[in-house]
């Protein structure tokens, strides 16, 4: 008798804690405060490019959903989660993240492209969005989306074992030409951002045909294979590499970026070594193209405040995210340029025919 009472009380305590857990994470849907923040009331004409003022809107009146096309707990998801804590302050409503993984982000993108364009369903995507447009058969077009904000920009690096017989990109090129087919490099999957960016690096060094490309299931597996000497090098984002480099297990041949990056200050960029590989991986928020402009303006302003806030920068730093931001107009332009460039690049490198 005593034990079953104890059990019931424990069960109640769990349920209570579970409920508290749900609320504390700031994602409880029902308990949304009324749209009290005045900045959510009208479109801010100062941000807008149009001559006449946009119609007033009380968007948002309920939580906004951001769909992430990758698995829960992964890098993209965690980066998207950086947006949520400040949302009630700057947007007036909570942001809810839903992960819809599949087909390299395409499942999530399709979900947003086919959703009601009222501003309540947004997409958090990486460069996989333009890539999937041209490498995959997908049900959406480049024009189905419009950029809202740039949230992250990470530069990939090519890493090899510390005892490899080459230190610079030039030496790698020499080695590859002298021993065609021997150098093997790994990436986390065909069609992934790192695959395309890695192929771009090799294309810039003109050794695409002299090396062997090995797809792996993820970055961890490819790094593990490099450390174990099974493959020659791997293309990864710096966050996965910094500890290994510091410990002297891996060395960086080059970083694909216009300038040296803070995470790996001693790693030379490809461009400074004379090879034109400067593409980085961007992540940002998109909305369906037919979203009303007044709603987009509200989102634009809100995300600017969220992403440029100190809190966001602080939390982003712990995840290895550099502080970047671009507003809707700039990011949209970036997106269109990326689409064009990726289309060309994929054809040139030979990843599509």
């Amino acid at each position, binding site marked *: 008798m005593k034990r079953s009472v104890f059990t019931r009380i424990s069960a109640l305590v769990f349920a209570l804690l*579970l*409920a508290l*857990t*749900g609320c504390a*994470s700031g*994602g*409880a*849907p029902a308990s949304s405060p009324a749209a009290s923040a005045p900045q959510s009331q009208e479109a801010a004409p100062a941000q807008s490019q149009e001559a006449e003022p946009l119609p007033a809107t009380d968007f948002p009146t309920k939580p906004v*959903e951001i769909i992430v096309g990758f698995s829960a707990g992964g890098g993209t998801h965690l980066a998207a989660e950086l947006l949520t804590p400040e949302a009630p302050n700057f947007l007036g409503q909570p942001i*809810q993240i*839903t992960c819809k993984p599949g087909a390299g982000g395409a499942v999530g993108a399709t979900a947003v492209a086919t959703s009601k364009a009222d501003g309540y369903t947004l997409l958090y995507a990486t460069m996989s969005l333009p890539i999937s447009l041209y490498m995959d058969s997908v049900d959406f077009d480049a024009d189905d989306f419009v950029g809202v904000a740039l949230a992250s920009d990470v530069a990939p690096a090519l890493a090899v074992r510390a005892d490899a017989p080459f230190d610079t990109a030039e030496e790698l090129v020499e080695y590859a030409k002298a021993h065609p087919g021997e150098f093997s490099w790994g990436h986390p999957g065909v069609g992934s951002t790192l695959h395309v960016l890695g192929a771009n690096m090799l294309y810039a060094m003109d050794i695409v045909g002299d090396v062997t490309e090995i797809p792996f299931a993820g970055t961890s597996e490819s790094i593990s294979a490099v450390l174990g000497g099974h493959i020659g090098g791997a293309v990864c984002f710096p966050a996965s590499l910094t500890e290994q480099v510091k410990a002297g297990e891996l060395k960086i041949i080059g970083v694909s970026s216009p300038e040296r990056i803070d995470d790996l200050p001693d790693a030379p960029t490809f461009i400074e070594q004379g090879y034109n590989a400067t593409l980085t991986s961007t992540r940002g928020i998109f909305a369906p193209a037919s979203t009303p402009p007044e709603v987009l303006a509200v989102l634009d302003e809100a995300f600017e405040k969220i992403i440029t806030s100190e809190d966001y920068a602080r939390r982003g730093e712990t995840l290895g995210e550099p502080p970047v931001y671009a507003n809707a107009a700039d990011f949209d332009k970036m997106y269109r340029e990326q689409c064009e460039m990726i289309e060309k690049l994929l054809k040139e490198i030979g990843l599509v025919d």
Partner: protein
Amino acid sequence: MKKIYSDLRSGILLFVISLLMYFVLIPAQISVKAGKNLAADFFPKLMVIVFGLCGLLLAATSAYDLYRHREQATKERAEGAWKTDYKVFLPHVIFLVSAIVYLVLLQHLGFVLSSIPFLIFLLWHFGSPSWGKNLVIAVVYVPIVYLIFSYGFRIRFPMGPLGF
């Protein structure tokens, strides 16, 4: 005997399916790119061959067993001991069809609104006779499940007209 007969059927079916897959489905569904590695259809074809051959083997051994006991086999067959009464599977078919209907409705009516009537139906179908009791069970259980998964584990269900 009935079991051996069923094995014979399974074996033949598997063999036929393997042929269909090898010659029709695989070429249709897998586009083979030229490359220095094993082709994309190597592994699937290998698997299809394996179960095709095993199916053939299964059919062959069952046929042989039936032949060895052919007197008893013919006797049983004449008595109709091998007839499969397909009516027995009617409840299963009803269940599966209703499940598909439910999953379609789920996307339009939202989780709670579609699950409650479906659960009531299912409870009756599985043998719980009292509609009143079923209603109570459904109306209590479905929202609890919804709350645990959506609030507790932050799963986003399809939205229905009422917003849940």
